[in-house]
């Protein structure tokens, strides 16, 4: 059981670049880990640190308190590229609980939703307004599928209904899938697959 996600009130961090790929979110050389934990320190590593390993003072993630800025607003076409779940692990470990863009890659979305990180696609107008307002306070209401702001009109968003239920109730996908055993076994029988010897 993970912590349920119902309503999140938080400030945004803005990374306006479009097509931020998974190699930027977590460079491949950090994928040699065998754990899910601790990747937050490598999130956006090559943008975040200079050649000496010192944090770049002008990079957005280095200027905020992750406990207060839990929503990442990113440019169009976010998280394209690799299927590495290390990308949402790194973002969640850094402290993010939601990512907002106009379009977010399929595999990343699927991975993020299994890790308590909510990907939200918004219309270009809302997106532009958010890009212009780093540190803006947003309320993400997953129950009502609504994004609310101080001075902007609220907007609706979509989340795959099963993933939403899992987030709201803190349910896990694997547990649900294991409960489908009878149907899975029936499918195997129908396709001539016998049980393991």
């Amino acid at each position, binding site marked *: 059981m993970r912590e349920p996600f119902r309503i999140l009130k938080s400030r945004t961090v803005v990374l306006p670049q479009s097509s931020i790929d998974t190699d930027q979110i977590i460079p491949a050389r950090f994928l040699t*880990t065998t754990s899910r934990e601790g990747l937050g320190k490598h999130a956006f590593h*090559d943008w975040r640190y200079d050649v000496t390993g010192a944090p770049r003072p002008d990079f957005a993630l280095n200027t905020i308190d992750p406990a207060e800025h839990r929503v990442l607003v990113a440019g169009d076409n976010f998280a394209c590229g690799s299927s590495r779940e290390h990308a949402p692990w790194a973002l969640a470990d850094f402290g993010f609980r939601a990512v907002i863009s106009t379009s977010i890659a399929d595999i990343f979305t699927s991975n993020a939703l299994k890790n308590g990180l909510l990907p939200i696609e918004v219309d270009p107008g809302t997106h532009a307004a958010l890009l212009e307002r780093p540190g803006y306070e947003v309320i993400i209401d997953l129950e009502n599928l609504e994004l609310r702001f101080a001075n902007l009109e609220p907007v609706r968003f979509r989340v795959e209904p099963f993933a939403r239920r899992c987030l709201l109730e803190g349910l896990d996908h694997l547990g649900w*899938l294991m409960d489908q055993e009878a149907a899975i076994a029936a499918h195997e029988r129908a396709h001539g697959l016998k049980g393991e010897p």
Partner: protein
Amino acid sequence: MPPPERTLFDKVWDAHVVTPETAETPAVLYVDLHLVHEVTSPQAFSELDARGLKVRRPGRTYATLDHSTPTLPPDANGKRPYVTTQAEAQVTMLERNCAKHGIALAGWDSADRGIVHVMAPELGLTHPGAVVVCGDSHTATHGAFGALAFGIGTSEVAHVLASQCLLQRKPKAMRVTIEGRLREGVAAKDMALAVIATLGFGGGTGCVIEYAGEAVRALSMEERMTLCNMTIEAGARAGMVAPDATTIEYLRGRRHAPKHFAAAAEHWLALASDKGARFDKEISLDATAIAPMATWGTTPDASAPVGAPIPAPRNESEARALAYMGFKAGEPANAQPVDVVFIGSCTNGRISDLRAAANVLRGRRVKAGLRMLVAPGSEAVRREAEAEGLHRVFLDAGAEWRLPGCSMCIAMNGDTVAPGALAISTSNRNFEGRQGKGARTILASPATAAASAITGVLTDPRALLAETPHA
């Protein structure tokens, strides 16, 4: 009622639905073949352990070592030059997990070991009409066989290990029809780059793409794999090609081909999309208009014919990409000296790719000061190349001949491009820093990469192929 005419994708999907999708829940989809490698699996096995679950179908799971493995041989004591102890720990962990769960592993001692998407087809593991998954986005490669093949995350790796199933919403269907024939000296890689340039990065999001048309039918299986491999670079879930005589001949006699081969082959031919089957989106391209392609930006869709001027940036991100690459709009990319050429990866590390590169290199030398590295896609490719003497062509030209693995494609095993250096790579991603921090990558075909290694600048291979070098 669904319409009676179905696409190839519909047919494969329908045959694997354990429980259909509803408004509330995704479909439960059965997986026939699950490929595993060392990088995206450790946390999945840990998840199983934590829940006391076992692998449901070890016989349908097949593992290899490829991503973080060194491509240099072991030292006199048999010690392999791992880039870090962590990389080595990942390999050890996969060895242990496979032993524990009874999963076949093409490990260091195996003559089968290779990049996961090169190895599985070679062994005949990838069957038409199957659902194939792997914790790796280039699983799309296997769609060349008319399989539904897609990448999954590590949580899903755990799902498949434990249940042999995945929770999936059915993607949309797109058809990309490529008419005409590729011209002499133009490769499947050029076709893939042209398709991605047409669709745009993200243009295939939410879709499974079926490749059709005369040009696709004319491709060999290895070329179809190159094409399907890069489907993910347009954001699509998977790429597929309908099985035909080419598919059947490729699979005949392979170790893991079905026992009742004739009956299986008959079934495969029936998988083709029905006449009149509906696609959510259709585009078409003319193969005769495709020239050797090279990327100029930091996404795989940002490409132009080799030698053509780089187009003016259309937005801030293209301008940023040009600045990163150090290229100027209006100038061709061959104004800059190339530092590294990499031949390999699951896109272009097969025997036909090495032959294409060797054809250009034979009797020639790699430009002084340029580093060229060739990493065969698998042990089988390595054996075949060495039997044909291709390794001699590479070594004589001044290139490095490595052990199989992902190598410089993802640069996590120590094979990296130095900061700022310009690489021409036959791999599939030119993202910032993909081949090493600060590295600049141009994606191209094996022939283009080899031609560029000789001249030291991005070069159309047709110019070199036309003239015979002095032996």
